[in-house]
């Protein structure tokens, strides 16, 4: 074979690497612009110079009102939007890779439904008996516990029937319907004003974000990251199909179980404080693969960035569309998500 063909191949590899690096940089830049926009929008209508000054002055700035709005409301909301977007983007891509299924996401496989049930149960419970811990902490804890319970159920099924993608997807769908039904039952039992609280939680909103929530969700994300990075090439190899990956010395079942647990932790960390946020975990991975392909060194960071971009954009849109009370991000992502998904499907026939 000619040397020219080899040189061409090497050149094309380098061009591709540069293009994909540029895609990641562009996503970072877009996220930065959206983040500034997000800090500058809100019901209080602070002018950009005011926002800028409050940002520079720090949390204990002289202008108390501006400092409080920026440092206790807008910044934690922004941080939460980024963490939730990153977590759901990563979780979605991991799920789609280990299950070899373009429809897999934390939302479609019941994790979010489980979190919603946990939260609804906690809200209903505290309407009858006073809880020893504050409501804003109890609800996320219950959501987190319910997500782990759902993971445990899928895990049990995979223990007895094997961790094949089909079994995991079927178990996930069963979990989705199970927790959706329980959620409906809780809503049925709840008094009207409690029902209103539950429904508002299920919308998924950044209004509940505070620095504690940011720290907890951020810590879960940070713990998961090194585990994901360690498996980055193994995940890429899995795109070749189970038989091929296994014959490259990869323990596919172990990889699948490991990633499944990571996905559960990321989802639980993301949705416990904010409520159900759908479609981010489904669309972000498709966007990432469309832009940089299936090399997980790039598709994982880009899925994370795409998730963050979607979340922050939804937050800005929610505040701009309804000046008085921001529309919850969960509603925006669900409404905007469907046309986005269709565009991605039409542009890329290969999933």
């Amino acid at each position, binding site marked *: *074979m*000619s040397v020219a*063909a*080899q040189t*061409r*191949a*090497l050149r*094309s*590899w380098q061009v*591709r690497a540069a293009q994909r690096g540029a895609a990641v940089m562009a996503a970072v830049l877009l996220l930065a612009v959206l983040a500034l926009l997000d800090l500058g929008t809100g019901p209080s209508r602070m002018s950009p110079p005011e926002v800028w000054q409050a940002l520079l002055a720090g949390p204990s700035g002289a202008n108390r009102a501006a400092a409080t709005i920026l440092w206790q409301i807008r910044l934690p909301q922004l941080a939460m939007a980024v963490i939730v977007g990153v977590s759901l983007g990563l979780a979605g891509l991991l799920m789609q890779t280990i299950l070899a299924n373009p429809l897999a996401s934390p939302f479609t496989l019941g994790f979010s439904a489980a979190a919603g049930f946990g939260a609804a149960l906690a809200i209903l419970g505290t309407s009858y008996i006073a809880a020893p811990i504050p409501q804003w902490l109890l609800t996320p804890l219950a959501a987190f516990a319910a997500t782990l319970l759902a993971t445990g159920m899928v895990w049990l099924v995979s223990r007895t029937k094997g961790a094949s993608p089909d079994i995991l997807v079927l178990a996930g769908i069963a979990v989705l319907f199970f927790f959706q039904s329980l959620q409906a039952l809780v809503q049925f039992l709840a008094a009207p004003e409690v029902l209103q609280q539950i429904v508002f939680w299920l919308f998924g909103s950044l209004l509940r974000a505070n620095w504690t929530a940011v720290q907890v969700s951020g810590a879960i994300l940070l713990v998961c990251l090194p585990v994901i*990075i360690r498996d*980055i*090439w*193994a995940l*890429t*190899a899995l*795109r*070749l*199909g189970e*038989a*091929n990956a*296994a*014959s*490259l*010395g*990869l323990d596919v079942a172990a990889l699948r179980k490991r990633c499944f647990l990571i996905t559960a932790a990321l989802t639980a960390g993301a949705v416990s404080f904010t409520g159900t946020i759908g479609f981010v975990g489904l669309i972000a991975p498709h966007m990432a*693969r469309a832009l940089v*392909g*299936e*090399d997980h*060194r790039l598709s994982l960071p880009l899925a994370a960035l795409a998730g963050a971009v979607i979340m922050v954009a939804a937050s800005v849109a929610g505040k701009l569309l309804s000046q008085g009370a921001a529309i919850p991000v969960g509603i925006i992502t669900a409404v905007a998500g469907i046309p986005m998904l269709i565009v991605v499907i039409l542009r890329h026939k*290969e999933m």
Partner: protein
Amino acid sequence: MIEIAIPAISRRNAVILHPLRLGIPQGQMLGIIGPNGAGKSTLLAAIAGQVPETVDLHRDGHPLTRQDIGHLPQNFAVRSTLTVLEAVLLGRREELGLRVPPALLEAALDCLSGLGLSELASRPLNALSGGQQQRVLLAQRLFRDPRLLLLDEPTSALDLHHQMEVLARLRAHARAAAVPVLCALHDLTLAARFCDRLIVLAAGQLVADGAPEDVLTSGSIAAHWQIAPEILTCRTGHPVLVAHPIGAPGSPDPAPLAALHAGFT
């Protein structure tokens, strides 16, 4: 020398592969032949460690692990959009970091070039034909440079030219890297031409083992493949198999041949 001991392998209460032992010298190209359902793929999967049963695998007295084996299964089809070059690099995924070492990249390109695949390096796998995919995945296994190569019908999707090229390349690899290459093959003429040794499996049992000319007799072919064989010798001295349906006008009568074979074994 690689030594393999496989226990009985059963699925749904039926034994699909009886216990067998094999010793394969370094650099030997070993063909595994036999009719459909004889256990060829099971044998390769078992050696690759992809059955629940424990298979004993040693190289010069030291145990071999799954990492030491390059196995190309029969159902190789991929839908991935990874490029050919990325796929080949994955053959040595253990050596890849967050950056791909330049030396490894060059080695991968050389490997592609060795199989005549340089032109395809930047193409996504799902845009390739079945035969091209098969050659790319073979390149990946060769790039891995394992201690033992197990290939399940590596020429099943290839045209005649590439069948010859791939088998010649595999034999050269076996010699140069001093590793045994085990190939399940259906084309008996090609198997006889490129393999140093053939084993015949029938109904999960090892029924013949030896040099191609000793194993591929009219009697054994008639008995195991249910055809009336005609073995010719071409100008280069290699045997060529012509298969006739049993009982077709002018074809040899397989009954006496099979009886003769039964007398030998």
